[in-house]
């Protein structure tokens, strides 16, 4: 087991290396001169441009710049935001809570909605319940989140007045964004649960459990669903990445503070250090969460470790 974990963790190293390289290259892949672009809205003289270039170490050889970038990053120094003039790490720290809250809440929505839907659909295979559940799931996948968000605002905020449309902080402000963001993941989880359940329900041990005279519901939950969830665990990790990507849109629609807004604001303000830092953070978080999921997977299903 230890060896498995160690192997997974080691495999992350080249991935993280690739991530730093990709994030670092952003500065060079964007057309035009990044310094001129950052200063485009300001009245500048050549001195200020040179000063900014030096401040960002853009006057050094590229290799040296990359080395500095990596070593600073390892020490937790992600540079200074051009727009706010504060450390990027501080900016991220201030916003991670709100996005984390949103990600967890929408994951709860996804699980709470997706798994029951999938189970119901599988149990009533080809019945109207199955069709209805899968139509809901299809809608969830197909509906763009900004559209769903606006619909929810229109219905639940403007007409019914149940929830505020904008802002962050307490639970009420969390509901609409979490539902919006969780819906897509819920749809994917529902479809996966359905197919996984169908497979498991056909297995011998389920038939045996039923033959022993166990209650139908007990068999479904304790024997079938528990095993059916194994592939779904993997999806959690992958969906987490989607949630972070979705946060960019959802946080903007609901005017909620968070990493997504931070990145969008950084892009619009051409704040390179901020965008680089935030993207790097999100990428690393995504990689680490998937490692955790892999390890968790190995616990849930011992066969994985052997493979």
């Amino acid at each position, binding site marked *: 087991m230890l060896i498995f974990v160690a192997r997974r963790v080691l495999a992350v190293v080249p991935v993280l290396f690739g991530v730093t390289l990709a994030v670092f290259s952003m500065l060079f892949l964007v057309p035009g001169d990044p310094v001129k*672009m950052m200063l485009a809205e300001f009245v500048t003289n050549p001195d200020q441009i040179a000063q900014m270039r030096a401040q960002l170490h853009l006057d050094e050889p590229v290799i040296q710049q990359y080395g500095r970038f990596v070593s600073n990053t390892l020490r937790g120094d992600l540079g200074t935001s051009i727009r706010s003039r504060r450390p990027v790490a501080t900016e991220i720290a201030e916003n991670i809570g709100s996005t984390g809250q949103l990600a967890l809440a929408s994951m709860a*929505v996804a699980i*709470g909605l997706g798994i029951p839907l999938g189970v119901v659909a599988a149990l009533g295979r080809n019945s109207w319940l199955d069709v209805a559940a899968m139509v809901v799931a299809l809608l969830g996948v197909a509906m763009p989140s900004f559209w769903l968000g606006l619909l929810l605002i229109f219905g639940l905020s*403007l007409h019914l007045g149940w929830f505020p449309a904008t802002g962050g902080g307490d639970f009420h402000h969390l509901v609409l964004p979490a539902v919006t963001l969780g819906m897509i993941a819920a749809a994917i989880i529902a479809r996966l649960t359905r197919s996984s359940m169908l497979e498991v329900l056909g297995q011998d041990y389920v038939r045996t459990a039923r033959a022993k005279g166990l209650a139908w519901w007990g068999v479904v939950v304790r024997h079938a669903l528990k095993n059916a*969830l194994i592939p779904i665990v993997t999806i959690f990790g992958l969906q987490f990445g989607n949630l972070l990507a979705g946060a960019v849109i959802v946080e903007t*629609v609901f*005017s909620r503070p968070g990493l997504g807004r931070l990145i969008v604001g950084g892009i619009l*303000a051409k704040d390179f250090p901020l965008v680089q830092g935030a993207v790097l953070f999100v990428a690393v978080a995504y990689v680490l969460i998937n490692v955790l999921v892999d390890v968790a997977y190995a616990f849930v299903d011992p066969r994985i470790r052997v493979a």
Partner: protein
Amino acid sequence: MRPERSWWWLGIVVLAAVGPALPAPMVRAVLAQTGGTLVVGLDQEPPTLDPHASPSAVTYQIIASVTENLLYRGPDGKLVPWLAESWSTSRDGRSVTFKLRRDVKFHDGTPFNADAVKFNFDRIVDPKFKAGGARAALAGYSSSKVLDEFTVQVTFETPYSPFLNAAASGVLSLVSPKAVRETGDQVHTRPVGSGPFMIKEYVAKDHTTMVRNPAYARKAPWSDRSGPAQIETVVWKFIPEAGTRVTTLESGETQGIYLVPAQSLPRLEKNTAVRVEKLPWPGVPRIWLLNVTKPPFDDVRVRRAVNNAVDKEAFLATVYRGTGLKAFAPLTAVMLDDPVLRQAYPFDPEKAKALLSEAGWQLGGDGIRSKGGQRLEIVLNAIEYGGGPDPTAQLIQSSLRDVGIDVKIKAQARPPWYEDNYRCATHGPVMFLRSTDPDGLFALFHSSLVGGNFNWSCVKNAKLDEMLAEGRRESDPARRRAIYLAIEKLAVEEALTVPLIDELAVWAFRTGVQGVKYNFNAYPVLSDTTIRR
């Protein structure tokens, strides 16, 4: 396996499923405002609230009644005293002497005096300070001299009459020197001014709150009463998504919003609980700068033809729908208006066709004109915003196709867009400028600014240069007007640009919100504002 271990995850699933449904109800109570709080939704978060560092209008929308200026300009454009009781320009036009009020204190108790004025202006030109729009407003600044505690003389290297209008503009509003020295970068989120409101709180990506300054005993220049502001608190919420912003106004979550999108305007105008207010932006309208160095735009007949061919009505009917007016000159009508400018280029495709034929461009089989085997092609430089280029570019394209000009839209990201403008590489971009002094035309047309910001017509005209310099020297308002009218007439005559739309700043408030006033910049000043539930 013990049962409780195999059931825990189901507990989470159930909790997650019913959780969101539980404590939903009391939202209305949360939203309820006390009598004295106004919540206004803005389309963006300011990059900074520091008046000297910001390049962005949203900063001054927020702080228009937080920081104060030496002079004030209301919607009529006239300069009146504010923190300066009087002012006089020296004979050579290089310096202005301000007599200051003696009863002013900044929000932190720091007394306002000549030293404070000098500190503020010196701060803006300090090379170590990254100034925003403020730096251009002090172009050619030489020094400020403290003549006595309440008299300050501001001097420029050359005569610079636009300074007076700049002194009334948010970029040169004054902050407490003590607060800047002691709190440094905090000015970015909490500028300490002297106005009827004080910034109390700044929550990034969410809102900023300002509260009434109880010590404000003066009469603000826009007001007819003395004393503190009427409302207790103003909350500025940052709501970038336009649809969401409009909805919050309709639901009452906000009582005012800025930037009503054109597609929502008819709905809000029909809503009896809402009042829409439209203010003309001062400065340069939405305008196409024609690169006069690039054939066929080196021929004035072609440039004039383009002016006759562009159907501005179509812009108003499609993209702008009530959020703009037809533009006629390189300055918006609120800056300078004259019948001669308005009559210069009526929409007249037939005249455009005649001009093009006269210039030797004959209609070909594909509906596009050509001359000597050369097709009449124009490259319009446009910014790609992610959802396609500026819609005005497409309207220009279809208007010009009707008279036989093939417009290629070069839609690109901002940096190469700027590069192309600096290099005069295309037939010109569509842009706009916010400027409160007609000297904004200097940036547009002075030959020294080809390759810089913003002479993207790439025009080098000695007569224009001379008049633009004269406008900077002249301090008499009537003579200045005559100079800039002459500049505009020349620019129109030479067809250096295609003025498209005078854009309007569109605000909307719940009808319970009364007494919102605006300064010349179209920013709201809120000390006379009241709110009724």
